[in-house]
């Protein structure tokens, strides 16, 4: 099907192709213009209520995190080693494909995380969207979210508060798949006796967070 029609070679076709658009032959210019125009899109999308999920990078002592928020609240926070593309694809499939990078919408998240990491904030006020969390996990993470700054509970205690006192293993799994670590403080849940247990972001980070909060001696 790739026969080139003879008329495609004529001067009109040529004029239309590159015609008059000198910079069509100037890829750098096109790239820059397109990038600039695309960057402006998120704000208009937001004002027309078409931006279902906004995401942006957030600097932290752990490296660059990625935060994603719906109109309801923060829906996902990732550690630097997580693959942003894969995370966004899952959000597209599970919540909405109307996803754009929109740093402005994440300003409050960025501000509160900054304050938390510098030790001036003890509780997060940004709203949470639990869209990625199932019913049981929602109860477990809700129980974790209620643990005050600088305090810790055991897995069994959290399972009890979630209404399933014998489900400490299931509670551990729910905490391990917390889509919004740090802000939903699953790091405040330890083993009986004080062993750290597990942490999706790595035990070094769990220890670091608990030391920041003064729950563990440095």
């Amino acid at each position, binding site marked *: 099907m790739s026969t080139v029609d003879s008329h495609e070679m004529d001067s009109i076709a040529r004029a239309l192709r590159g015609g008059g658009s000198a910079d069509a032959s100037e890829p750098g210019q096109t790239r820059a213009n397109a990038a600039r125009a695309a960057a402006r899109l998120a704000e208009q999308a937001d004002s027309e209520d078409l*931006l279902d999920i906004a995401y942006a990078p957030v600097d932290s002592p752990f490296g660059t995190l990625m935060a994603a928020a719906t109109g309801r609240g923060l829906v996902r926070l990732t550690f630097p080693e997580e693959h942003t593309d894969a995370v966004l694809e899952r959000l597209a499939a599970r919540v909405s494909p109307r996803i754009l990078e929109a740093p402005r919408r994440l300003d409050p998240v960025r501000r509160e995380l900054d304050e938390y990491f510098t030790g001036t904030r003890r509780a997060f006020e940004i709203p949470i969207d639990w869209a990625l969390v199932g019913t049981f996990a929602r109860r477990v993470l809700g129980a974790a979210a209620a643990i005050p700054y600088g305090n810790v509970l055991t897995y069994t205690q959290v399972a009890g508060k979630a209404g399933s006192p014998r489900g400490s293993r299931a509670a551990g799994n729910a905490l391990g798949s917390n889509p919004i670590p740090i802000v939903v403080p699953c790091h405040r849940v330890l083993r009986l006796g004080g062993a750290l247990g597990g942490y999706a972001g790595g035990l070094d980070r769990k220890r670091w967070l608990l030391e920041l909060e003064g729950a563990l001696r440095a």
Partner: protein
Amino acid sequence: MSATLPPFQSFLDENREAVWRFLYVSVGPAEADDCFQETFIAALRAYPKLRSDSNLRAWVLAIAHNKAIDAHRGRSRRPVPVAEPGELEKTSSPGPGAPRDEELWEAVYELPERQCSAVVLRFVGDLAHSEIAMAIGCSEDAARRSLHEGLTKLRKAVPA
């Protein structure tokens, strides 16, 4: 695994240059940016209902083409703002090249809609006949015919 639509940002990143180039050529530098925003806002509005196996590039270029038609219609209703050559260079610095052939572009947008679409999507959007057919909702043969008829008319209207 069932295919799902990519996040809109990936779709935008992959198609923004093709759409920008398409609009720059078809409506000109002055209106390309507005048309670009309108194109992707319209795409974003319709996006969640799109089938995940759609040809996304053909789809978004068809939207861009509709915005280009609107721009040309709007232009024909008001006096054409003729930019000074120097002014044009300042705002969008197109670099050296042939001046835009306004006469030709006017003739293109005066073609019957399907012929206009076939010509523009083929030569500016660089779509294959099958993609043009998909974009304007006709058979591949009909797209081919429209393209041929459109070019024939243009050749008569704008002697080279």
